[in-house]
């Protein structure tokens, strides 16, 4: 499902070269739930960006869903992303649209037939426990609800891989647990999950395979 082979990502800051990822290699099999754990600045987001081809590695190979990502054309990148659900720390909901419209929006831009959209949106909203808030605007939602709406948007397309980049990072413990439960349900439905967090305790409670990043290096791969 995911394979990184000796991946380096180096940013040039003026004359100085800063390695964000150094010689990272790992594999994630189909159907796995993997936690990517590390403090802020450890390279989690950089690694995630490589997986949905928002960025390319300076060296090494990144393979996702059987595609080597470095040489993909723009069209191939779009095709790849259609199979990946992405959730960020800030939910990135569109403020001028309701929760329903936010979820429906991505289905419409991907050309989902109109008759299927309502059903799929409500299926996704039910899965995250947000169907009662379908007509609410993002400004009317709590942070936890916003994150659940973002998850609904990600799973409405039935992705093969869910990339969650610190979705619980700005939530309190109770809300974080709720969001995590939803992500586990999504994984239980067969979706491969890569979940990034800076909270080591959260990674421990998950009791799943954990990749620990520190200073851009993969320090541990356990569980």
């Amino acid at each position, binding site marked *: 499902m995911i394979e990184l082979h000796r991946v380096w990502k180096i940013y040039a800051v003026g004359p100085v070269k800063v390695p964000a990822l150094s010689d990272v290699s790992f594999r994630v099999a189909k159907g796995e739930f993997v936690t990517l754990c590390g403090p802020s600045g450890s390279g989690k987001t950089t690694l995630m960006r490589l997986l949905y081809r928002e960025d390319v590695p300076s060296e090494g190979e990144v393979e996702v869903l059987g595609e080597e990502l470095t040489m993909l054309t723009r069209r191939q*990148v779009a095709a790849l992303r259609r199979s990946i659900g992405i959730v960020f720390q800030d939910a990135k909901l569109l403020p001028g649209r309701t929760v329903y419209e936010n979820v429906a929006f991505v289905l419409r*831009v991907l*050309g989902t037939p109109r008759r299927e959209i309502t059903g799929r949106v409500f299926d996704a909203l039910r899965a995250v426990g947000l169907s009662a808030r379908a007509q609410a605007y993002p400004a009317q939602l709590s942070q936890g609800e916003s994150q659940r709406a973002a998850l609904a948007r990600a799973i409405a397309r039935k992705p093969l891989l869910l990339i969650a980049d610190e979705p619980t990072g700005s939530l309190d413990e109770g809300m974080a647990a709720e969001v995590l439960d939803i992500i586990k349900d999504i994984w239980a439905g067969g979706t491969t999950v890569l979940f990034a967090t800076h909270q080591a305790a959260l990674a421990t409670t998950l009791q799943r395979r954990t990749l620990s990043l520190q200073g851009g290096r993969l320090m541990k791969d356990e569980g």
Partner: protein
Amino acid sequence: MFGFLLGEALRDLRRAGRVAVSAILLISLSLAALGAFWLLSSNLGQAVDQFRERVKIIVYLKREPPPNESNALVERVRRMPGVAAVRYVGKIEALGTLKQVLGKDAAVADSLPQNPLPASLEITPTAEGATLDGARSLVTRLAALPETDEVGGGLDWMDRFAQGQRLLWLFGLAVGAVLAGAAILTVATATALVLHARRDEMEIMRLVGAPEHVVQLPLLMQGMMQGLIGAVLAIWVLIGCYAILGPRVEPLVTETLGITRLTFLRPLNVVSLMIAGTLLGGLGGWMARGRTEP
């Protein structure tokens, strides 16, 4: 999908607000100016065509030929390229015509010791022969005939008239082009504002793998809509001006140019203006997209 893209384009148009309104007005202004000059020019062109249809070239002969020679001469001239019809006018017929023109003073002609009028050929050119170049070469050929004394009815005045018509058209095109340039830049600015307003949406679209045309088309379409609305407004302005000013100007035009009535732009011209407006708007939208594409 088209309905969705159209909906997004309309949403973008609303977002652009006053800048979009300015762009629409500028497009209207440029197309109205272009259309007005087009209208003037086409009416002048109509006058030129009418003049051309009535054009006759007169070849005055050195001496009146005997009947068998005059028939041969007429036949020779009729075979010349650019000649539609030839009529021989003898000295007696010419004098009769003069008397008709003089009316009650016709006796003056009778008092002349001899008929001073020359025999002539009255030539009606073909459509090709009535063009400026055609007429010029026909006159040259006729002047070269050994029987010719002088050729009258040249088209120099029409040459100047048509040149004026072309200048008017070019001036209109130049004014329209300058205004169109300003309109394109305004549409581009409106689109840039839209891009700023919808950057979050575009980011989401790209992250979920929307095809690039779905991301870009609403921008292009909102520019095209601005252009189309501007063109429709311009056409309404032209129709309004034509309805108000036409009846007032028509008598003057009839008197000076000889055309019975002013005509409005043909449907094809109107469609061309609408297409031009849509393309102008689309170009503005496309330019802004080109500037900000990630």
